[in-house]
């Protein structure tokens, strides 16, 4: 119980854990879909507080990690062009492409800027009418609506020098792909709460029914995770498989209708390749034909890029819950947050980074002091 006093309400945490312990009678494997949840779990040692029967498997829900190498390489190519201002969320800057990252492009003279919101990138375009401004539009269903709105605004305001490099991904097809995999061990899902704040819960009953798998919509704080696990284990023990909302303060069944309408207008569903995993049918969005002129891939023809994944990196297996990060040979040796080989080590949401930063038990003393410096919270 060494972490439990750090919980916001340690008494409630203890009660939830006791309930889980008294409910569970046999082993269960639960997948938390979202990288934010993985971080909460590792940071608070929730996986170690849970009874041995409950295993948490980390899911593919880190947008930075799953952005395909090919798209990173396209971003690097566009950002290197003279006259381009390339805007991105900060956590994309160190994601390695085939031979460099956005930080390097910037140190070589590229105009790479970090923005907090896609609307900031649109403002940069308004202020620099003689330059091409490209925003790196990655993320799941939570980030896609802001990016969709920005493209809509660009058209409404007639801003011609703005475009989006789109690599959006959708959760339900990923769940489907995980359940179809012959080596799948997942028996239940903690669904990502903020994705559901936008999309609601309507996409899940079909999956729960088809694969007989409980899906519990779960928030991001330590107590949210414990409550999500408690409800999931309850269903598993009873042999139920329904969609349950354990995050009602932020998730309504219908999600956010205005955001969903904008998504449907600006984007269309497409097959998308996930880094380390491969193509998952219908798992992404691209700009719909009406907005094609705002598509950076269209505007800057970036083709013929030769992409090469580092052979040592096993992030594909990590992202599918088939391998725990510390089981990778490169983990903590040739691959650290400072010298990342794979995206799951770069991203602050990535499972490899979470293990490296918070699971200090598994580290050599030298690596541990490196991780203390690297983390904002310890």
């Amino acid at each position, binding site marked *: 119980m060494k972490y439990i006093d750090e919980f*916001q309400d340690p008494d409630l945490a203890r009660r939830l854990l006791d309930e889980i312990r008294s409910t569970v009678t046999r082993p269960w494997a639960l997948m938390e879909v979202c990288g934010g949840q993985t971080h909460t779990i590792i940071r608070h040692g929730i996986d170690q507080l849970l009874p041995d029967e409950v295993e948490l498997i980390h899911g593919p829900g880190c947008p930075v990690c799953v952005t395909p190498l090919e798209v990173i390489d396209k971003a690097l190519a566009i950002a290197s062009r003279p006259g381009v201002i390339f805007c991105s969320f*900060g956590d994309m800057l160190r994601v390695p492409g085939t031979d460099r990252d956005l930080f390097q492009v910037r140190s070589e003279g590229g105009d790479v800027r970090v923005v907090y919101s896609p609307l900031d990138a649109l403002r940069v375009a308004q202020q620099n009418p003689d330059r091409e401004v490209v925003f790196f539009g990655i993320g799941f269903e939570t980030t896609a609506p802001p990016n969709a*709105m920005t493209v809509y605004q660009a058209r409404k305001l007639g801003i011609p020098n703005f475009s989006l490099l789109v690599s959006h991904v959708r959760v339900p097809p990923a769940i489907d792909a995980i359940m179809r995999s012959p080596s799948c061990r997942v028996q239940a899902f903690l669904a990502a709460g903020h994705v559901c704040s936008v999309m609601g819960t309507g996409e899940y009953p079909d999956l729960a029914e088809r694969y007989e798998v409980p899906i519990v919509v779960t928030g991001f704080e330590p107590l949210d995770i414990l409550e999500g696990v408690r409800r999931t284990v309850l269903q598993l023990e009873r042999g139920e498989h329904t969609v349950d909302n354990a995050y009602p303060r932020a998730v309504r069944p219908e999600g956010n209708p205005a955001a969903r309408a904008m998504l449907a207008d600006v984007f269309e569903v497409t097959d998308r390749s996930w880094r380390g995993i491969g193509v998952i049918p219908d798992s992404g969005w691209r700009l719909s034909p009406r907005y094609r002129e705002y598509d950076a891939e269209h505007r800057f023809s970036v083709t013929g890029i030769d992409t090469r994944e580092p052979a040592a990196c096993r992030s594909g297996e990590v992202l599918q819950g088939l391998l725990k990060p510390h089981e990778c040979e490169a983990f903590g040796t040739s691959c650290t947050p400072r010298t990342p080989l794979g995206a799951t080590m770069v991203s602050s949401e990535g499972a490899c980074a979470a293990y490296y930063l918070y699971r200090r038990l598994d580290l050599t003393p030298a690596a541990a002091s490196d991780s203390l410096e690297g983390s904002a919270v310890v």
Partner: protein
Amino acid sequence: MCLAVPGRVLDIEDRDGTRMATVDFGGVVKEVCLEYLPDLRVGEYAIVHVGFALQRLDEESARRTLELFETLGLLQEEFGDPLEAQQ
């Protein structure tokens, strides 16, 4: 970037035909687009992701989450600029 942070609306205005708000995230103040939650009022709380309010939140949950994020250093992680941190 993945974090959706609760914030309190301080002020609302129309800019270029878009409903925008000034929102306080436990001391950090940012511009936030309200187009997806158009009936949000001054003083109310919402979950905000990359500059967009996505869902209303009650005050009690918002405060608890913000306190927790603050303790964990997550607000700095979310709002800090990695380019400045590098230099």
